[in-house]
């Protein structure tokens, strides 16, 4: 009996260990999903000002990046610029929040990838902390009602980003229950 029980007792420990090794400690689900996006304002690198609150009714892609974030930010930069060019006339806004960077390095990065979408620094990191960012790059997709619909950790991928944007553009507003407009079986 003892000979069987001792190895058996080890099994729960092994299961626990296996679980621990298989889960990604950095993949922390954001508590902000489906919540209304924290409002923020940016002073853009081109001198304009940007206010998230003015973009109700649009799908907004908020990207947190830094010039020192290599290679992920460099991989996703063309994807973001591409999404902006593709969708800017269809009620979609892409905005870049530059975190923990120097202005010179950030400008060089933007020149390198020929950014045309609004970008601005986040002095003090207040916006990133407000969005629960724990590393760059991170990308949030906001629906037309200003809720965070999707969060992407790591380099944004074209197919995923486009899929999210398309989905939110075509999403029918939550159906209001109507009475009397469906046929009952004859």
């Amino acid at each position: 009996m003892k000979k069987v029980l001792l190895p058996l007792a080890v099994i729960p420990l092994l299961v626990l260990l296996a679980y621990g090794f298989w889960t990604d400690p950095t993949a922390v689900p954001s508590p902000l999903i489906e919540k209304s996006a924290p409002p923020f304002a940016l002073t853009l690198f081109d001198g304009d000002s940007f206010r998230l609150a003015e973009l109700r009714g649009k799908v907004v892609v908020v990207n947190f990046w830094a010039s020192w974030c290599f290679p992920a930010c460099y991989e996703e930069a063309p994807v973001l610029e591409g999404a902006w060019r593709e969708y800017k006339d269809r009620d979609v806004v892409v905005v870049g929040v530059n975190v923990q960077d120097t202005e010179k390095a950030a400008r060089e990065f933007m020149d390198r990838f020929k950014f045309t979408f609004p970008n601005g620094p986040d002095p003090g990191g207040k916006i990133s902390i407000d969005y629960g960012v724990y590393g760059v790059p991170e990308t949030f997709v906001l629906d037309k009602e200003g809720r965070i619909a999707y969060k992407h950790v790591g380099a944004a991928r074209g197919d995923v980003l486009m899929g999210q944007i398309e989905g939110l553009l075509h999403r029918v507003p939550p159906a209001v229950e109507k009475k009397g407009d469906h046929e009952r079986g004859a």
Partner: protein
Amino acid sequence: MSVARRQGGIERRSKTGPLRAVAASVVLMVLSMVAVLPLAASSLEEQTHQIATELRCPVCQGLSVADSPSGMANQMRDLIRERLQAGESPDAIKAYFVERYGEWILLAPKREGFNLLVWVFPFLGLGGGAVALALVLRRWRRHPEAAPASVDPAYLERVRHEMAQDQS
């Protein structure tokens, strides 16, 4: 201390010895844990530091916001200080970070629900260990060590002989 008294002491202790010793060590352990609990912070810097020690630095591996030299932790400390200055309570500030990052941001999980297991298990383990130790000690006392095994007299004689040779 005289030899006689020391022996007496051992004699007396051995009656209730193991149980009492285990209990005493448990009490000591609990006391030492209580001793390191943080004292109430007073100044702004101390309060900031106190909150920062309870938050996990998001860009580090197992470091608190207080211990990390990273830019992100720096910004978080600034934010904590600012919010304290604005009159927010430490609990409200921690709640803000939990709201943004999830409970993951707390280095110690909240003492509620399933999390309580984390707080209870060490003590259960300690208690279980103490009981097991006491049981084993009791069994050992009831069944004192068996008499030394008999040795072949010829072998014993040979060992004695060789030892005597060694000494000479």
